[in-house]
């Protein structure tokens, strides 16, 4: 179902981008979803971080936009085997959001509007590796791609980059999320092809 454009005049297919094992390049942006697309109004949107002691940090949409934003271009790798090169985003680094949070936890359970969850080590959300992204290719992020805002952790398979992100719970132990509890890998490194449990 991938749309091929024979006359496409963009950059050559392999211009410096690398494909992880078992992946193919796509140029459209497939929409994957485990449920109906939540429609979250910006005035109702909030993002929270909850620590192991129950402390809760909260940001409104206005709070998010008042924080320093970064523009970044990354490759995306979906566990359903497509990769998309050179996607451009704007968002707030998790280093900024988590910088004020006091926690001794090593793991994060990310939750989204609509009920989706995914888990990853807290360290993978830090050091310039993860963002709350709210603009894609120069425009507001469309709802089907996770708008108003989604998590983006591009060094892991895309199911970790929760669309419609709503909050992060910091936990002492790794707690499996939506796909991790039905066979998908706890970590999901595309370069080590960690698709399923046991990979």
């Amino acid at each position, binding site marked *: 179902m991938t749309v091929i454009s024979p006359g496409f005049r963009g950059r050559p297919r392999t211009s410096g981008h690398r494909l992880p094992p078992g992946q193919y390049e796509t140029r459209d*942006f497939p929409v994957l979803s485990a449920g109906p697309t939540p429609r979250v109004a910006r005035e109702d949107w909030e993002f929270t971080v909850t620590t192991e002691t129950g402390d809760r940090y909260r940001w409104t949409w206005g709070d998010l936009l008042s924080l320093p934003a970064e523009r970044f271009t990354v490759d995306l790798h979906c*566990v359903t085997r497509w990769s998309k090169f050179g996607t451009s985003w704007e968002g707030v680094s998790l280093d900024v959001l988590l910088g004020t949070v006091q926690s001794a936890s090593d793991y994060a359970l990310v939750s989204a509007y609509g009920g989706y969850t995914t888990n990853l080590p807290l360290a993978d959300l830090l050091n310039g590796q993860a963002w709350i992204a709210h603009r894609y290719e120069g425009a507001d992020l469309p709802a089907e791609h996770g708008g108003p805002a989604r998590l983006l952790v591009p060094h892991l398979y895309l199911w970790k980059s929760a669309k419609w992100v709503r909050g992060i719970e910091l936990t002492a132990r790794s707690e499996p999320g939506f796909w991790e509890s039905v*066979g998908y890998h706890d970590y999901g490194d595309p370069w080590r092809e960690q698709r399923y449990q046991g990979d």
Partner: protein
Amino acid sequence: MTTDAGAPSYQDGNALAGPLSELFTVDLTTALTRCTGCGAAGPLAGLRVYAHAPGLVGRCPGCGQVVLRLVRGPRAAWLDLRGTVALRIPLGS
């Protein structure tokens, strides 16, 4: 795999027939399920199945709760039925 604007992003539960037939000898799409969320009962074929995803997700048409999840890996399948109280599976006498 772009989604057409306005087109439903789910299929009906008959989309489960093929994947489940690999695991069970009876046709489970006619089995009656009761949603743990809202209590509504109906055949698995009545679920809303989201298939453009890393696995199949069957949701209750009444309340949207996840009733069934099925993931097929190369060496194993994972089936989660925690969203149904029980399945009534019709059998021949």
